[in-house]
């Protein structure tokens, strides 16, 4: 040691943060953990239940296990569909935004508008928009003779939720990609012109590699948000028709608050949480790997 006295009072400065984390995360999570390992008959009587809730949940042959499996599959499918549409679309639109001039500011504001609208408002707007009787979109499709009904037809419901998410959140991908594109020095484009590269070659050899880092972030953010999607299906479809748009979060709320099945809901919450955490960790690893390779 260097002989300097160690002043442990420095820890006092960390206390406010610890208190904050305690109330914002640790206590709520521990409450859920508490539910997931006990059974209750109401009136605050809890009985030790071990890992039974978890074994039920992860066993597809039980009712709750099958339900969880379906919801998980549905949610993953939804995330995948949204990503497959939003990432290329976002990049494509970002490529069309001019690099300089007064149009830049205007375009960016217009593009970002959907992101500024609160979730439940988005849901309500679209719920009205898609109604087959009075909604502009719904009535127009029905008028064209297409079978479109959000409350009865699963395909209509799915399409609507995906379209809402694409409309609401592609702007995020656009803004991130645009920032990434702007960071590419002009010399790269000039060199590509000198080298006689085609537009495709420029995209694949300059733009896409330079966008890698922001795209990982964009995909991570979009995955997280679509994987946790709640408000839009809750407002527009209510999880239906049937259980066609009952994603994990909606199912969780149904089990916890609809059926007051706290044990199942607790276990499901934790597994849901762990999946999210794992995906985050995978993305973080990819990001640090890219960082280490340097000069992306």
């Amino acid at each position, binding site marked *: 040691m260097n002989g300097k006295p160690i002043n442990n009072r420095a820890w006092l400065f960390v206390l406010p943060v610890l208190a904050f984390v305690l109330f914002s995360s640790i206590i709520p999570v521990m409450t859920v953990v508490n539910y997931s390992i006990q059974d209750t008959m109401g009136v605050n009587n809890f009985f030790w239940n071990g890992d039974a809730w978890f074994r039920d949940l992860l066993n597809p042959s039980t009712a709750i296990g099958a339900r969880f499996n379906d919801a998980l599959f549905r949610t993953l499918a939804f995330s995948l569909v949204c990503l497959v549409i939003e990432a290329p679309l976002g990049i494509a639109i970002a490529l069309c935004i001019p690099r300089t001039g007064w149009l830049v500011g205007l375009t960016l504001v217009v593009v970002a508008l959907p992101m500024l609208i609160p979730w439940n408002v988005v849901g309500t707007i679209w719920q009205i928009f898609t109604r087959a009787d009075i909604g502009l979109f719904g009535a127009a499709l029905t008028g064209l003779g297409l079978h479109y009904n959000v409350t009865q037809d699963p395909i209509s419901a799915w399409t609507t939720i995906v379209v809402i998410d694409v409309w609401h959140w592609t702007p995020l991908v656009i803004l991130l990609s645009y920032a990434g594109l702007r960071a590419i*020095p002009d*010399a*790269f484009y*000039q*060199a590509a*012109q*000198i*080298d*006689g*590269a*085609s537009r495709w*070659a420029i995209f*694949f*050899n*300059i733009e896409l*590699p*330079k966008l890698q880092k922001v795209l990982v972030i964009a995909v991570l953010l979009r995955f997280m948000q679509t994987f946790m999607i709640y408000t839009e299906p809750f407002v527009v479809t209510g999880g239906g028709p049937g259980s066609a748009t009952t994603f994990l979060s909606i199912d969780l709320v149904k089990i916890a608050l609809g059926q007051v099945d706290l044990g199942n809901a607790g276990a499901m919450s934790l597994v849901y949480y762990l999946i999210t955490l794992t995906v985050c960790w995978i993305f973080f690893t990819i990001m640090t790997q890219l960082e280490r*390779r*340097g*000069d*992306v």
Partner: protein
Amino acid sequence: MAQITLDGIAHAYGGKPRSEQDYALKPLHHVWEQGMAYALLGPSGCGKTTLLNIISGLVIPSEGRLLFDDKDVTHLPTKERNIAQVFQFPVIYDTMTVAENLAFPLKNRKLPRAAIERRVTEIAAMLDLTSVLNRRARGLTADAKQKISLGRGLVRSDVSAVLFDEPLTVIDPALKWELRSKLKAVHRALDLLMIYVTHDQIEALTFADRVVVMNDGKAVQIGTPDDLFERPEHTFVGYFIGSPGMNLMPAKVLGSRALVDGAELQLGAVYPEPPKGQRVQIGVRPEYTELSSMAGVPVQVRRVADLGRKRLAYVTLGGQPIVATIPPEMSSIGDQAKVVFDPARTHVYVDDIRVTGAAP
């Protein structure tokens, strides 16, 4: 392979110029001859890069015509001009190996595979890149990356010209010398027109057959390194080339004599009386201004700088600060000394332009 003609080329960024100040590049006529190595030399912001980008087509000039041999290419896009250009900072394609990077300009022009491979091998050998040919380019050092950029500039043997925009700025000093002599060797071997932008006079003078000195959007002198040193046509060339630059003193010129703050200097020629109201200066390089203890014009010595190879005295002639060379045999230097100017190398400038005198 071609000769490139600038016919009144001028450029103003952002459209219509209203005054001369708006031009980044003022109207310029020049013929770049096939097989020559040119350097474009000047301080930052003098229009060097603009001129280079006009030749390569990255910038379309607002005025004038650009000819490659007899073909007007003023409005042709870069791709159709057959020009190679190397930039100040390394540009490499991250996704490709070193070999693929070097092959890229050839592949885009649909050369046969065997020819591409031959050229890539040659260029790699020349730039010492053979050992890393199959490595990914992104992991290499800045030096190596810039070598790849240079390689991509040199890999096409059929280009009209190769343009370099301060290509050695990011390179280590030791490697700089080596690469510069390699470029020179390539130039001799390929008989290409090369134009090299730099603000480093040593780089310009060692690389080029002809140096174009630019200042404030104008080409102030085009000449051999020797011309620029011995006969600067403009006071800017006088003090920009040489280190330290030329001594410039306001003077009164009377025939073959000049008066500087009361002191009389001999000139190498007889000059006509300059028109009234114009600024007259005489200029002598420090190399031709020698400190002496015997004859000469009396000066005050301010300080002495020992550069190892040579010694310089910073002195004042009347009120004019000038720099003089101290001859090797002179040992003790007091506050007072004398300087001798070489009359044959003393030039007269009227409004910054050199005037020639008649033989005495």
